């Protein structure tokens, strides 16, 4: 065809920076997230305990208001590392349940519909795809773990004074680091299960199974081999050791914090490996 006859004109406008593309996946996945009334109600319910803690912190520093209850002015709550370990344990359990509801629906529909081909024939790499899908869990779970935790920390700091805040700054960092490592492990585990198990309900059940069966398996190993090393298969024990260390809460632990960190990171790495094996533009059937 003669060149002058060609009417094709390419797009010549501005385009958004490539680093921000994964957020498109987050925006569109988030829409589906709160379509279910149950999920929305559960998400709202996750704020009940932080609100209760907030009221407790407030009441703790305004004891005179509760003199009619016979309180003689001594604080009934110690706002310290142990308090935030309890807070994080409750919120992390809720985060786990929320992940079991949300996680399985993130990757499996794309694999079932062959949509990965369409994603990856755009300027979006496999890593960005995983990051986009993971950001749904990272952001949603952050809303119920470390973000309200930091609010509690700063409320307590505003009531107890700036000295308390500087003396206990490690609580804030513990909240962020402790929550993020838990969210990371949960997200990768949920995405890996979503990629390998087609049915959402089965994938959700498997996620719960990994937590409870892992704990059971750990106990069985400990009992049979008369050891404490079986806990390496128990994610809840591993994260508990890390949290107690981050919040300087002394407790008898079966193994060192370093080993717990290695165990958690190994879980995350194994999940990532499983996930990346499935997130491909094409599948070779031998």
């Amino acid at each position: 065809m003669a060149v002058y006859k060609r009417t094709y004109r390419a797009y010549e406008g501005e385009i958004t920076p490539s680093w921000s593309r994964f957020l498109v996946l987050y925006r569109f996945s988030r829409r589906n997230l709160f379509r279910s009334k149950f999920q929305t109600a559960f998400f709202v319910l996750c704020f009940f305990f932080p609100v209760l803690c907030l009221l407790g912190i407030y009441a703790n520093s305004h004891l005179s208001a509760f003199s009619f209850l016979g309180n003689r002015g001594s604080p009934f709550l110690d706002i310290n590392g142990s308090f935030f370990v309890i807070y994080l344990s409750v919120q992390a359990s809720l985060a786990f349940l929320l992940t079991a509801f949300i996680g399985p629906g993130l990757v499996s529909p794309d694999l079932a519909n062959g949509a990965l081909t369409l994603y990856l024939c755009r300027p979006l790499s496999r890593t960005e795809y995983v990051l986009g899908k993971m950001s749904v869990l990272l952001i949603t779970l952050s809303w119920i773990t470390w973000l309200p935790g930091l609010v509690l920390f700063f409320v307590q700091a505003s009531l107890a004074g700036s000295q308390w805040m500087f003396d206990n700054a490690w609580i804030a960092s513990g909240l962020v680091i402790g929550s993020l490592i838990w969210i990371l492990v949960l997200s990768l585990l949920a995405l890996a299960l979503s990629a390998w198990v087609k049915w959402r309900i089965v994938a959700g059940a498997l996620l719960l199974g990994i937590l409870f069966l892992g704990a059971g398996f750990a106990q069985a190993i400990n009992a049979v081999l008369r050891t404490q090393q079986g806990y390496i298969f128990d994610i809840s024990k591993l994260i508990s050791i890390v949290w107690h260390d981050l919040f300087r809460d002394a407790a008898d632990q079966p193994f060192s914090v370093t080993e717990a960190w290695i165990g958690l990171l190994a879980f995350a790495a194994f999940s990532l490996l499983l996930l990346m094996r499935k997130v491909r533009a094409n599948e070779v059937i031998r």
Partner: protein
Amino acid sequence: MTDRIVFENVSKFYGDVLGVNRVNLSIPPGITSLVGPNGSGKTTLMNLMTGLIRPSHGSIRILNVTPDQPEKLFHTVGYCSQFDSLPKTLTGYQFIYSYLQLYGFDSAASDELAWRAIDRVGLREAAHRKAAGYSKGMRQRIRLAQSIAHNPRVLVLDEPLNGLDPLVRAETIALFRSWAEEGCHVILSSHVLHEVDIISDQVILMSGGYVAAEGNIQAVRSEIQDHPMQILIRCNRPGELAARFFGENHVVEVRIHNDRRGLLVKTSDPDRFYLLMNRIALDGFSVESVAPVDDDVNSVYEYLIGSKEVTQ
């Protein structure tokens, strides 16, 4: 050659499984059809063109863009896979809009490009309906729209005519033709050989991971020496004409047509045969038509690949 899709000695192996082997191609603008039985390497070739997989050996350049320039490559190429990848919860418009955002278009540009693509496939009325309520033809058209929405110059379409009724099929073929006329590359795979014949400017015949033939189908046919060309002649005196042909050493076989108003000639040298026909016309034979009957994709496919697997 900046307007060509070039494969230079490209091989792709999935472990020990052969995808394609030693492929050399130079595809000009226009409609190019990939034809071959299942497992012949058509989808591998398409995946290589779209940058979804990298070759094990050799190099690929899409209009002088290599797969090492993903941002540029993915803006150049549009892909419509054979999978029905429409999320049921999204509307047709949202489906196209969301994928446009992944290209880096801002909201206003995505909106404009999405509507332009929707208009091109004639789905404006249904654009705000959920994809779950679309018919198969509508789903196919919205998938085509997503592949053209970012205004690519190379369109790779895997089985794009599957599931379309005859009317929509004709409209879709017209759409392909209009893209080709704009100077775009339309690369499509199809199992329907008579359609390939009608719409393609050139074909690539694949077999067992190798390119069996490529180019204009008539040119490919003329290269096949093992099978003499079959030519149907409609004329008033077929018996006399047959006697005339028997004297020529390039004529392999002559058969008089059942209605006795024509004859089928097999010749090993079509050029000499046509020269002969010129002389015959001057000798007073009334020749109504002279037409080759086996220079279509179906025949070439059968001669080269030796299977009727894809024919319908």
